[in-house]
């Protein structure tokens, strides 16, 4: 098991290294010369000054030296400097990561739990209303843009029936106590987490239904039934544990998409996380910040994949054996 995990870890490091090389390559392939842009802002410069600028940025060195410098800096936690905020990108990301993690975790958790329950119920009763609900839900969830669902929910729950705040993470009047602060954040979290989760609810309910239907037809479930075990025990002990495996795998594999969804949902609700930061850096053409967010998100996906791999090994003894 240990060597398996080590190999995964090495693979993860390699993937992140590749992301960095891609980042570097993209900046270099992209049209537009940073020094010329700078000179343009300064209102022109002599050729000597341009050469000096090139040298000070290390742009006169061969590409492999430049990429070495870049990798070395990233290893020290330096993702560059934001051209708009005039702050280190690492600092900006550290400031915004908390809200994003909160939003993504809450959204995924409720979607997975409710989605699995819906899927399990609808697998047992194929033509019940729950089964039809899962079908309609998954079609709607796959077809509507997540940011549009968010706006529609705002129109419904913040404008037509004003029970939830439109945007932000906290109210303008400062909360006086810790509990007050937590409640305030939770109140603001409901709409974005509901929106982001809806898409995955659609996905997980359909996935767990398919997986449950498959598991219910296997020999070990038939054996359990033939032994005369109570139906509930068969479903929740024998079938569900196996049916939940693909749900765990996909939670890891899909994490990149979850981050993409978070970018859109955060933008709609002005939730102060990485997604809003990404949106702002597009508006301000702040390339270092956007590339930093891309790298950091890839890091999160890799960590999430390792984590689900670990959980998978814990709940499926067959993998542990190999």
């Amino acid at each position: 098991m240990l060597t398996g995990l080590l190999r995964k870890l090495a693979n993860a490091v390699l993937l992140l290294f590749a992301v960095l090389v891609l980042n570097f390559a993209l900046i270099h392939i992209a049209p537009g010369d940073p020094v010329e842009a700078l000179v343009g802002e300064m209102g022109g410069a002599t050729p000597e000054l341009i050469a000096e600028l090139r040298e000070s940025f290390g742009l006169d060195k061969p590409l492999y030296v430049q990429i070495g410098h870049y990798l070395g800096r990233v290893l020290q936690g330096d993702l560059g400097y934001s051209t708009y905020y005039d702050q280190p990108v690492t600092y900006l990301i550290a400031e915004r990561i908390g809200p994003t993690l909160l939003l993504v975790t809450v959204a995924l958790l409720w979607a997975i739990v409710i989605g699995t329950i819906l899927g399990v119920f609808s697998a047992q009763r194929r033509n019940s209303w729950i089964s039809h609900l899962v079908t309609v839900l998954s079609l709607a969830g796959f077809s509507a843009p997540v940011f549009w669902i968010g706006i529609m929910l705002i129109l419904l729950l913040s404008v037509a029936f004003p029970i939830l705040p439109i945007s932000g993470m906290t109210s303008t009047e400062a909360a006086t106590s810790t509990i007050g602060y937590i409640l305030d954040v939770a109140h603001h979290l409901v709409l974005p987490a509901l929106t982001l989760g809806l898409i995955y609810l659609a996905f997980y309910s359909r996935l767990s239904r398919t997986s449950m239907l498959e598991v219910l037809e296997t020999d070990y479930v038939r054996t359990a039934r033939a032994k005369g075990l109570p139906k509930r025990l068969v479903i929740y002990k024998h079938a569900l544990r196996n049916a939940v495996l693909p749900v765990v795998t996909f939670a890891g594999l899909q994490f990149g998409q979850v981050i993409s969804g978070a970018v859109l949902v955060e933008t709609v609700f002005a939730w102060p996380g990485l997604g809003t930061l990404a949106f702002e850096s597009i508006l301000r053409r702040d390339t270092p910040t956007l590339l930093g967010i891309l790298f950091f998100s890839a890091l999160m996906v890799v960590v999430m994949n390792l984590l689900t791999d670990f959980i998978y090994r814990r709940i499926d003894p067959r993998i542990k054996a190999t």
Partner: protein
Amino acid sequence: MSVTDTTPPVAATAGKPLPKPVSPSRQVWQMFRQNHSAMIGLFILFAIIVISIFGPSLYTVSPRDMVWMPLTPPGQSEYLLGTDYLGRDLLAGLINGGRVTITIGFSAAVLTILIGVTIGALAGFFGGRVDNVLMRVTEFFQVLPNLLFAMVVVMLFSPSLINIAIAIGIVSWTSTARLTRAEFLKIREMDYVKAERSIGAGNARLIWKVILPNAAPPLIVVAALSIGSAILFEAGLSFLGLSDPNAMSWGRMIGDNRPYILDSSWGVTFPGIAIFLTVLAISLVGDGLNDAINPKLRQR
């Protein structure tokens, strides 16, 4: 037994011609036609495509001109769906935006399938080291958060229609590649492939002429569905402000009108319904195709 005695078995039906064998694509169409939701999807999709092609020349109001009071609600002027925050006609925006949205959706999907099928076919056919390297590349693209990566590409290389389609294609092909690879791994061991190889068919012929046509059915379904995801993807990018400045698209209309939702809910509602209907229609057609091609998997 003399030869003249033998009556060939066909003689019994000699008078009436044998029923023609039904071609596979005809069979699929017959199955598809019985699926009501798939036929509704096909009809909606057809209508949207016809409107996008002919609409702009029939309804000639420009989607960029200020034609009326800003934020006029639907039905209160000659402009049926009302106007947006700049007084632009929403209906004109929808009709012209459909053209852009659907064009990008189709071309990005073509690119997705092209990259995915090529990589998956090569990996599945050659196996071994080629497979290893190509699957690493696929894994790499799966790890990249696709929207953020597309945002970086579009921002660095200017948001033209072509760049947007390319960016979507580059980030969306991984699942197609995996599916193609799995199909190729399965089919390359079949007897008819071995037979072709033994009579001297080259690799190129085996890949494109022998295996690919047999791997096509599930890929057709994926291709149909990937048009839908490409449309959603484009909507997301243009909502974030990464759209061609010269082209109106549905996602961009939602992004443009979002700051004014308190004064005009219609400005965001109609373009959203347009996206929803289009992608829903594509999903219904895709599901119908899936059922028609794999009848065994129905009800799943």
